[in-house]
């Protein structure tokens, strides 16, 4: 296994005349917690969806866990875990049934499922509600359970799409502890977020602006490089020139002719 978990080169996705992801290139190293930052609609979810095989790229190349996104999507699917913004749990199933379902989908044996279920429930403190339907659990519990379920087959890489939106700060903190735990066990984590404080928890981050990568590096390096005190400040600086012009990127009319200097004003 190479130490590059994800490698993207000139990865591009267009929807009609709109370019959602515009020639982005980056690498994520094995075991890294890599943060994908950007305003809503900057293209981070689109980029992630191409990497996990939910969306075909329009151009460029990408390898995930050593497999090509165009030709080896089946192999990729086996090596990754994914948690969407909406948690991907079945609300009318109990935590135990959810774990069993996803364990079965990923081909775990009955023995493995049983062991991991007990371990996960104990770790998350959910043993007492293991047989309650998920919709009766608080949002924070559901989110942690969803994360563990995404890891049930011990994937090499886990993709988290805005996993902490709508969750209180304490639960977010606990959630990041889970992320660190997974990373220290060797799982590569790619997480999208628009909470800038979370960026500080990542080993490395990339900030996407209007489909392109505006900055990439460790949080400390980036702050030094741009001479700012926080990632928040950096983000605003990168995002502002276009943020005024593009309230809603979905309806953005591409304007490649606009001069960069004009955008900054």
């Amino acid at each position, binding site marked *: 296994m190479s130490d590059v978990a994800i490698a993207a080169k000139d990865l591009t996705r267009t929807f009609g005349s709109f370019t959602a992801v515009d020639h982005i290139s980056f690498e994520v190293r094995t075991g890294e917690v890599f943060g994908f930052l950007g305003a809503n609609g900057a293209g981070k979810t689109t980029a992630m969806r191409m990497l*996990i*095989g*939910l*969306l*075909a790229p329009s151009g460029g190349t990408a390898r995930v866990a050593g497999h090509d996104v165009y030709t080896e999507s*089946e192999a990729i*699917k*086996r090596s*990754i875990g*994914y948690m*969407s*913004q*909406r*948690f*991907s*749990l*079945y*609300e*009318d*199933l109990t935590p135990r*049934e959810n774990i*069993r*379902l*996803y364990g*079965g*989908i*990923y*081909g775990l044996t009955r023995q493995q499922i049983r062991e991991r279920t007990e371990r996960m429930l104990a770790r998350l403190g959910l043993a007492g509600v293991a047989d309650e*339907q998920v919709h009766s659990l608080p949002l924070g519990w559901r989110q942690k359970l969803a994360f563990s379920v995404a890891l049930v087959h011990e994937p090499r890489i886990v993709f988290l799409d805005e996993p902490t939106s709508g969750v209180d700060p304490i639960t977010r903190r606990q959630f990041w502890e889970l992320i660190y735990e997974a990373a220290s066990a060797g799982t590569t984590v790619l997480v999208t977020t628009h909470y800038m404080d979370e960026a500080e928890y990542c080993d490395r981050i990339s900030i996407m602006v209007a489909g392109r990568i505006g900055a990439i590096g460790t949080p400390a390096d980036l702050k030094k490089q741009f001479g700012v005190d926080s990632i928040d400040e950096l983000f605003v600086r990168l995002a502002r020139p276009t943020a005024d012009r593009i309230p809603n990127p979905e309806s953005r009319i591409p304007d490649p002719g606009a001069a960069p200097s004009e955008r900054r004003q």
Partner: protein
Amino acid sequence: MKALKGLLRKEGYHILRDRRTLVVLLALPVVQVVLFGFAIRTDVNDVRLAIVDPAPDRATIELRNRFASSGVFRTVAVVSRTADLDPLFETGAAQQAVVFEAGFANDLGSGEPAHILIISDTTEPNTGSLVQAYALAVIDGYQRGLPRRSAPAMRSAEAGANAGVAIVPDVRMRFNPTRESSNLFVPGLMAFVLTIISSLMTAISLTREKETGTMEALLVSPLRPWEIIVGKVAPYLVIGFISVIAVLVEARLVFRVPLRGSVALLLFEGGLYILVSLSLGILISARTSSQRVAMMGALLGTMLPNVLLSGFIFPVESMPAALRIVSYAVPGRWFVLIARGIMLKGVGLEYLWLETLILAGMAGVLLAASTRSFKERLE
């Protein structure tokens, strides 16, 4: 295979835990059979009959008795003047009136035209003409019982009998031998129930997974598209079969609807129809992202055509040509034909192969299209 089993179990939990929907699904066929069986009747009985008989004689009494004992008519009034009928019709006390002339028996005996006027309330045209036909049949029956020698006299009377309704020997009506409309509606009802369960429920349950984001999780997993589809729709296939059997058993027990042909063949054809409906449900879900839109899509796209254009209630033959052409594309039309053939006529594949082939073709095309639409979701 194990993954698929897990999916099926999960879908089972969904269905079993959504009590309200489950009750609706199971009660629906049972309630529908009763509703359609008793409410939608094209056969008539208990017709409120008024009789105008200014001078009762042997013949009019005999005819009146025949009307009373026909099982269709109930005599509500016997009056002596035609004018007395108006209030009866206006209040709805009478639906039909039979008016005899004075000297009816004499005319019959002497070979003069014997006139009977039949007046029907045709606010509901179909019922009106049907009731009229029953009345003519009763008169016809009476006439057949008359001594032979008087028949030629009446026949000659026919030509000049334009003023009222003469007793015309040629009047002949062929009835549905048992006069049961339930025989006709049960096959259509099966199509209706299967459409609800297969198209509507499939469309809703697939869009629900889109809404909750779990569909993404399934698509990202190593599950193949066909496994996801089978996992989602197989449970509804089972419920569909249960409903068909429930409808058949109930129709048999409550309405004595016959099943003259092969049960196995009927279930096979039912299976084909379920496949068609399921595929439509998948196609609808591929183009919608909310359960509400999916429900509207299923109602407009499958339920309406299958109820209105299948011949289930309204005969295809009486539709305008354009609609008749459209009806060829309605799967329910073919299934209703097949089911009626098997149940009422007792025929087998030797007569129904064309309809079966059309249904199978539809199933093949739609299944392929729906699997494709499912894959395209990834692009």
